């Protein structure tokens, strides 16, 4: 029955008229040919050993071997936090707001996760202990998801309020684990690399550029001329220059511009440039959001006696940020992709690592394998950001509320 209706709708969509049918058939043939070609190459000719032999390099670069337990610990903690949040969200799908968080059907998500854990470490030919470690981590995640779900159903949703707090704490803890300090051996940023560096750079820039962008957007509307012109100057300067120039410029001048401790080396300088760059675009997205909140909102808030900061915080910004969310996340996605430019200033993030691998005489001519892997990795990260943003959008949308 369902299959029949699917066929019928396919026929209607693709083969409605003779012209449509021809076009559809032609396109389908092209797609099929490309897919077959790709699969043949991927499973026949491609030599994935270039990835399999360099998994550690791609994952963490030259992070010292004897300190990598810190990263494993971090991954395990991340899995625990994910399981906890996931389980609680499932137990209280509405929270104080309506709408669901992705994935709407999280059985599928569990299945995908389980498949990835079973398949990816094996496909990468990881040593058995490492494979076991990944299985253990996934098991941990799923177990906590289950436990948190049961616990959350028995306790009121108010508990959800403090759960998000574990994420910033975990971020700080992760920073310590990665870079050292507090009794841990220091691992300088020059030894971070691969996916680790890419994710660190992108997440730092995303987290820091958001408040910066909001402040700049507010500054641009401020009544104080100095603040207004400062913001305009900043935004327009950044948006007028290509990122790669700013990256090179930042390597040379950030040492003078920021207090010494903040940008001690090329990695941190690059992180700040990414932050300032992304902040200017976030500011523009937020400005558009602010402009779309009717003036009557501010007037109503003020007429009720709210101060300017209160009306911003409780009335104007929540609405403006919700409207700005898709554009802002779009910026974050391009930022994630722009981290590849860091390879041009000599950082060994994913692309930089890939280039060193491809320059290795053992793996000459394996560019296609490497680039395809990179593309898939980036695609996954961007897709995750996009899905998260759409879920958040739905969660914040008042029209999706229980009537």
């Amino acid at each position, binding site marked *: 029955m369902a299959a029949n209706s699917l066929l019928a709708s396919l026929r209607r969509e693709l083969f409605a008229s003779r012209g449509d049918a021809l076009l559809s058939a032609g396109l389908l043939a092209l797609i099929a040919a490309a897919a077959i070609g790709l699969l043949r190459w991927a499973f026949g000719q491609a030599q994935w050993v270039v990835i399999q032999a360099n998994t550690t390099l791609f994952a963490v670069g030259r992070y010292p071997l004897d300190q990598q337990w810190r990263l494993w610990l971090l991954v395990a903690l991340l899995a625990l936090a994910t399981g906890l949040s996931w389980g609680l969200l499932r137990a209280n799908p509405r929270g104080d707001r309506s709408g669901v968080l992705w994935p709407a059907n999280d059985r599928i998500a569990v299945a995908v996760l389980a498949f990835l854990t079973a398949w990816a470490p094996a496909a990468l030919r990881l040593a058995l202990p490492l494979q076991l470690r990944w299985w253990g981590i996934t098991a941990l995640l799923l177990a906590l998801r289950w436990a948190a779900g049961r616990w959350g159903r028995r306790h009121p949703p108010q508990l959800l309020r403090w759960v998000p707090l574990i994420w910033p704490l975990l971020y700080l803890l992760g920073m310590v684990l990665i870079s050292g300090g507090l009794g841990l051996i220091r691992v300088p940023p020059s030894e971070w690399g691969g996916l680790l560096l890419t994710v660190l750079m992108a997440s730092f820039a995303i987290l820091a550029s958001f408040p910066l962008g909001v402040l700049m957007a507010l500054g641009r509307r401020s009544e104080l001329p100095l603040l207004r012109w400062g913001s305009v100057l900043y935004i327009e300067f950044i948006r007028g220059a290509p990122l790669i120039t700013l990256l090179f410029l930042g390597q040379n001048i950030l040492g003078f511009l920021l207090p010494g401790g903040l940008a001690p080396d090329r990695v941190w300088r690059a992180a700040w440039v990414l932050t300032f760059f992304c902040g200017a675009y976030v500011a523009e997205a937020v400005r558009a959001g602010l402009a779309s909140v009717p003036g009557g909102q501010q007037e*109503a808030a003020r*007429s*009720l006696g709210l101060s300017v900061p209160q009306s911003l915080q409780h009335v104007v910004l929540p*609405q403006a940020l919700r409207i700005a969310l898709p554009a802002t996340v779009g910026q974050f996605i391009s930022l994630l992709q722009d981290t590849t430019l860091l390879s041009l200033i000599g950082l060994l993030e994913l692309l930089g690592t890939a280039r060193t691998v491809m320059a290795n005489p053992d793996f000459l001519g394996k560019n296609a394998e490497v680039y395809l892997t990179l593309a898939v990795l980036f695609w996954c990260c961007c897709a995750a950001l996009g899905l998260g943003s759409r879920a958040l959008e739905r969660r914040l949308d008042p*029209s999706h*509320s229980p009537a």
Partner: protein
Amino acid sequence: MPASQPMIEARGVEKWYPNGFHALRGVDLSVSKGEVVVIMGPSGSGKSTFIRTFNALEEFQAGSISVDGIALSNDLRNIDAIRCETGMVFQQFNLFPHLTVLQNLCLAPVLVRKRRRAEVEGQAMGLLERVGIAEQAGKYPGQLSGGQQQRVAIARSLCMEPRILLFDEPTSALDPEMVGEVLEVMKALAADGMTMVVVTHEMGFAREVAHRVVLMSEGRIVEEAPPEIFFTNPQHERSRQFLAQIL
């Protein structure tokens, strides 16, 4: 008849917009406690501008205004105090669309008056009951009809326990069949002795509820009279023209 203690006292108010437009040209008005004053006048005559000076949504350049004994000056503390004493209901409702009806009501009392949320929620439910929409407390404004939204807006103002309510054409954006329900709420408020300044063209409301009708034209008040006199025997040519237009 209302007592004569003045709640609003405006003297010689002059207002220029930043583009140089002279919107208010020496306006005097005094509103006593418990009085209901209806302001009428052709479009662009400065009605909105005038009542928006009462809670400092618009600045004025000359003259003086005092509200409930507090002089409106540039002192921000005075402005905040006055805004707590006056509620305002807008033509476009201006409810907060990202908050539920109940949250709309509770926001200001909790933030500004620093009252306990549970206690404010109790009061808010009572007010929603009074304007006849208690069952909508958990909905968002976008899920309500225009008339319901305007009643929520009135309840939101009342939740701050104001001593004066300002209305700027509260029924102009409503479909005709919803005007009545909002006017009923306003009549009930007037009957309870609330001091109200209402910009409206609803003749029926003015006749029935107003103690005084004020006609504005080109930034001035041209006539001030009790409704029975204003509607039957206006003294000024400008008033007669205006009434001829809207009758």
